[in-house]
Each structure stands twice: as structure tokens, then as C-alpha cells.
């Protein structure tokens, strides 16, 4: 039996693969605890949290300038929030539209999907050219924001389309035929069913926008978002404060993921309670 050799070989290979995926981040996390006089490489002179203090502005003045994260972090969070709201609303509306077959649905589908395909550097360039020509000043809450939605809306749309495809239209029709108004039906029947999809679409939109870089590069104007601030430090020499930042921002993302997980769990347990009532 070949699978007796094949299975362990593939298992070991997959382990090495995971090491390949995680290795750089592990090294980066270790090096973020470098001492103040150490560089961004091995060996670790002395374990310390100096670079975390440095990042948060708690360390005394040093040769390394502080990462400009404060204002840019707030901007990035606001931008991601705006993007999440708009792309989720657009996603729900479009996915709802695609539940019925209609002429021209093919081109409309591909036009939406194109948003996640077009390289950021191209739409970014186009938007910069457009705003230059029209005399609109570029800003993270304007030109960058609309491009972020162009990028995240297709993801929200696809997630919701998958949910809508799976759910039975007759449930809504039953509600309507019992005389419930369309608005009420959406609130009491449709929305609870699609809620997990909405939550996933929001998570996608938020994390994609929060980390979006190439679409923002040409369109953010003078005030930088977080990824742009990080990119600015690439051209000069890097220090372990960047590594400390990487660890913290990863923890922030995991917090989001945990919140998502808790909301999802709470919702599904509520939904199963409903099911129990129906059966009982």
C-alpha cells in the first residue's frame, strides 16, 4: 500500500510547510524582545521589552525616532470602519439582487468581482490622475475610502452570495403571505438568516481595509494611514521597534477575530434555541 509511505511523507511535508509560513513571524516576534543596544538580528544581547516601551513612547529619547503610529492608527481604524459599513450594505443589496435570475447578471457579476482583481497600484494611479484632473484634493477619507470599498465590496458580496444561495426563498414568501410587511420580513426573517454572512463580510472588509496599502499609497494625500506610515520606515534602516509593532498589530487582529468568534457563537447558540422551540 503506497499510502502507508505517502501519508506520513505528506504529513511531514505539511509540517515543514507550516514552519515556512510561520518561521519569519516567529523570528520577528523573538527579535522584538531585543535589548536597547541590539540590532534587528541575532544574537539577542539581552531579553527586554525596551522596543515595546519605545513604540508606545515610554522610553527615554534614543537614537531611533519613534514610529509614527498614533494618528495614523486612528485614521486607519476610522477608514476601515467606514469601508466596512458601506461595503457590507452594498454587498447585502447586490447579493439580494442576485437571488433572482435576470438578464445582464453575468456582466454585473464580473464587474463587481473585478474590484478585487484589479491591482491596487492601477486603480490608485487612476484615482490620483482623476482627482488631479478634477481638482479634488486627495485624502484618506475621500479618494482612499472609495477605493477601499471598490476592493472590499466584492468580498462582502461573495460571502453574502454564498449565504443567500443556500437559503430557501419560501421562508420569506411564507412571512409575506401571512401579511407581514417587507420591512418587517427583512428584519425578522431575512436578517437573522443572513446575519452570520453579514458578520463575516464585516470581518473581511475591516481587516482588508485596515491592512490595505497599495490602493492608499497614491490616494491618501498628506495624512498617512497606518500601512503607509510603516512603508515609510522601509527605506531607512529598520529597528526592532518595527518588530514590536508587528507583534502588537497581530495581537490586535486576533482580538478582532476573537470578538467575531464570540459574536458568531452567541448568535448560533441563540439560533439553535429557536430551532428547539419550533420542534418542541
Amino acid at each position, binding site marked *: 500500500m*503506497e*499510502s502507508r509511505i505517502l*501519508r506520513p511523507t*505528506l*504529513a511531514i*511535508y*505539511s509540517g515543514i510547510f*507550516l514552519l*515556512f*509560513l*510561520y*518561521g*519569519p*513571524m516567529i*523570528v*520577528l516576534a523573538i527579535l522584538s524582545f531585543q535589548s536597547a543596544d541590539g*540590532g*534587528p*538580528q541575532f544574537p539577542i544581547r539581552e531579553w527586554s521589552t525596551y522596543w515595546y516601551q519605545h513604540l508606545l513612547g515610554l522610553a527615554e529619547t534614543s537614537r531611533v525616532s519613534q514610529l509614527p503610529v498614533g494618528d495614523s492608527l486612528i485614521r486607519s481604524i476610522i477608514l476601515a470602519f467606514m469601508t466596512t459599513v458601506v461595503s457590507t450594505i*452594498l454587498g447585502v*443589496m*447586490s447579493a*439580494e*439582487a442576485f437571488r*433572482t435570475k*435576470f*438578464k445582464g*447578471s453575468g456582466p*454585473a457579476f464580473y464587474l*463587481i*468581482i*473585478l*474590484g478585487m*482583481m*484589479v*491591482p491596487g497600484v*492601477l*486603480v490608485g*494611479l*487612476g*484615482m490620483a*490622475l*482623476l482627482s488631479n*484632473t478634477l481638482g479634488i484634493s486627495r485624502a484618506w477619507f475621500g479618494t482612499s475610502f472609495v477605493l477601499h470599498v*471598490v476592493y472590499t*465590496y466584492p468580498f462582502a458580496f*461573495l460571502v453574502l*452570495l454564498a449565504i443567500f444561495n443556500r437559503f430557501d426563498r419560501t421562508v420569506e414568501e411564507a412571512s409575506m403571505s401571512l401579511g407581514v410587511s417587507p420591512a418587517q420580513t427583512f428584519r425578522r426573517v431575512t436578517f437573522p438568516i443572513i446575519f452570520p454572512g453579514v458578520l463575516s463580510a464585516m470581518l473581511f472588509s475591516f*481587516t482588508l481595509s485596515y491592512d490595505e*496599502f497599495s490602493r492608499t*499609497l497614491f490616494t491618501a494625500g498628506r495624512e498617512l494611514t*497606518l*500601512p503607509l506610515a*510603516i512603508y515609510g520606515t*522601509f527605506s531607512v534602516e*529598520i529597528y526592532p521597534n518595527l518588530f514590536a509593532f*508587528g507583534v502588537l498589530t497581530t495581537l490586535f*487582529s*486576533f482580538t*478582532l477575530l476573537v470578538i467575531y468568534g464570540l459574536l458568531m457563537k452567541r448568535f448560533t447558540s441563540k439560533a439553535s434555541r429557536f430551532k428547539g422551540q419550533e420542534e418542541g
Partner: protein
Amino acid sequence: MTTLSTDTPSDTSLSPAQLREKKDRRRAITLLTPGLLWMALFMVLPMIMVVYVSFWTQTTFTVESTLTTASWERFLSSSTYLGAIWTTLRIWAIVLIATIVVGYPVALFIGLFVRNKTLQTALLVACVIPFWTSFLIRVIAWRPMLGTEGAINAILMQLGIINEPLTFLLFSEFSVLVGMTQIYVVFMVGPITFMLGRIDPSVIEAARDLGASFGTIFRRIILPLSLPGVMVGAIFVSVMVLGEFATAASLSGRKVNLLGNIIVSQVGSLKWAFAAVAGVVLTIIITAVIALALRLVDLRKEM
């Protein structure tokens, strides 16, 4: 649907089915309009602008809307820029093949050999978790890994395999290829695993009962059924790698210039028309690649 008759009194000649179809269509269009309008204004229009500006006249610091092909002529006669096209295509091809070669066995393991659903999900989640780290941080994480004083060199020296640190690891085409493969390989693993997970185990069992070796089963059943996954993964990886510039900018030490890097540097020096030409060339390449891939697989059917 009591509202139908009052809604459209003039359409009494149509059958209820036609009426309903008409109403559905109108509803779909109303719901879709905001989204499609957004895409038209903020995606299609900027792209048209890129094509338009590529024919503008470039002066030292601005562009004027007098049409000319000067920027195109300069681009197509410069060996630097033609070289960028070649570099982009070469890096794309190598990374694409690397993601397939590196990712396929992992997908094979997760999708076909792990039959425990919980473990399967756990492994897929483990592949996705790195995406919760910022993209730029994941790129920069390769520096302490590959540098002359980096982790790889340190380990190899400790083991006595090398005496001098390897210098080709960082700030070279090699580091760009490794970085891109690590960042994008998951987009290949995901779709392939999905397609492999859909294969009915009884088909493979039947083939085995009939005496087929694993090689035959792989060639005749597994590979053909997983090809749509490979194609979807290839589309993901292609569009992302072709539009890349950050990995090359931070890991190649300016030795690798992709079309994306050309655009960034031209915008930096306010050569808008020139950046637009590079943008159009990049668009043509990406369109060709996607068109080719879509010929081979119907994306909407696979969703």
C-alpha cells in the same frame, strides 16, 4: 402579491409569470444600481483615465492634455522599461509555479488524506492565521530571516554547513521569490483543498478495488478533478503577483524592478504620463492572463 395589479395597471396583457419576472428584474436593478455605480465611478473611470493620460504630454513636473504618443515611444524604446516587463513576467511565472509545487502536496494532504473534519478545519485555519498579520510586516519579517546575520545563516553556520554567510539570500531576486511564494501560496492551497475535499471517496475506493495504483488514481481521478482549484488559485496568485511592488521594494534592495515599482517611482517623480503607460502595459498583461484563465475555468460556476 396583491400589489402587482395596482402597481402595473397597463401590463394586464402579460401573464402573471411575465409580470413577476418583470418585477423581479426591476427589483434586482434597483438593488444593484448603487454598487454598480460605485464600481463604474471609482474603478472603471479611473482605469479609463490611466489609458487617457498615457497619451498626454509630459512636461518636467506636470502633464498637459495635448495628445501624443511620446511617452509610449519612450517606454517601448527603453531597455530599462522593456526589462521591467520581462522581470514582471519572469517573477510571475516562477512564483506561480512555486506556489503550485509548494502548495499542491499540502492541499493533497489536507483535502484528501485528512478525513477528520475538525483536523481538516484546524489545518486550514492554521494556513490562514498568518493573514492576520499586516502584509507589510510579513514582508519585512523576511529580513531578519534571510540577512547575512539572519536566522538562516546563523543556523547554517552553527551546523557547520557553511563557513561564510550566504549573501544571495537577501536583497536579491531570490528573497523576492521566497517572500512572494510564502505570502501567496495559501491562495493556491485553499481552492485546491476545496476541490479535493469534494471528491467522493468511493470513487477512489472503486478505482483502488479495480487494481489501480496510486499513481494511476492520481493521474486519472485526483489531478483532473482538482484542476479547477488550481486554475482559481492561479488567478488569485497571478493578479496579486503581477500588481506587486512592495515585496520587491523592501526585499530586493532595488535590484528587482517590476512594472509596479516603475509606476511607483514614476509617480514619485511626478512623471504621470509615464506611470500611466506602465499602468496600461500592466493592465494588458493582467487582462491577457485572466482571459486565458477564464477560458479554462468558469469562475462563477466554481463559487
